[in-house]
């Protein structure tokens, strides 16, 4: 059963990876990375049980904490494009989403 779960996680990673390859916008890619990160946390926990070493779950814990930093860095980079490139300032500078 754990093998099946591992396989399901890997298949989902493959699907997310193809979304990242296809993804027309940057946000699709970020979404794919975020998803692969969460799936890695689960995969590491499942492998720890599959190998009968539950004391190695520290690793999954590390990823659960660290993934957030990477995603924050990526989003900060995207949000600050305006400051680096004055030509896009107009579209990005409003903090509020555009009214529908």
């Amino acid at each position, binding site marked *: 059963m754990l093998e099946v779960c591992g396989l399901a996680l890997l298949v989902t990673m493959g699907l997310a990876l193809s979304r990242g390859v296809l993804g027309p916008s940057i946000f699709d890619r970020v979404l794919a990375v975020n998803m692969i990160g969460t799936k890695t946390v689960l995969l590491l926990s499942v492998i720890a049980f599959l*190998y*009968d*070493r539950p*004391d*190695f779950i520290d690793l999954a814990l590390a990823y659960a904490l660290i993934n957030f930093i990477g995603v924050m860095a990526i989003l900060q980079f995207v949000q600050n494009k305006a400051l680096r490139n004055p030509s896009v300032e107009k579209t990005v500078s409003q903090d509020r989403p555009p009214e529908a």
Partner: protein
Amino acid sequence: MDTFLGLYNYWIYVGLLVVGLYAVLLKGNYIKRMIGLGIFQAAVFLLFISMDKVEGGTGPIFRYGQDITTIFANPLPQVLILTAIVVSIAVTALGLALAIRIKEEYGSIEESDTLRADRDE
């Protein structure tokens, strides 16, 4: 099939080595080259870690009440690579710092631009 899975990691290592070296040699952008260098280093890490695996073994950390016949993976390649990963990020940081300085002086991080600027002087 057994040969295929037994050697698959070596083939992936060859692939990573070539992809990394391709970026280092044939890409003009300095940051792309640092990315290539990272992939090249990871290929070496993969080669070393592939060596440590023993069939039916487990990670080299002892447990209470373990069986006397427990097989453990080889700890030595792990030690070498553990330190190498942190050294690789330090080296990458140094390369990125150089790229930032090149951008500030030449206005570009493309090799062709910097070479042209050097020729024109």
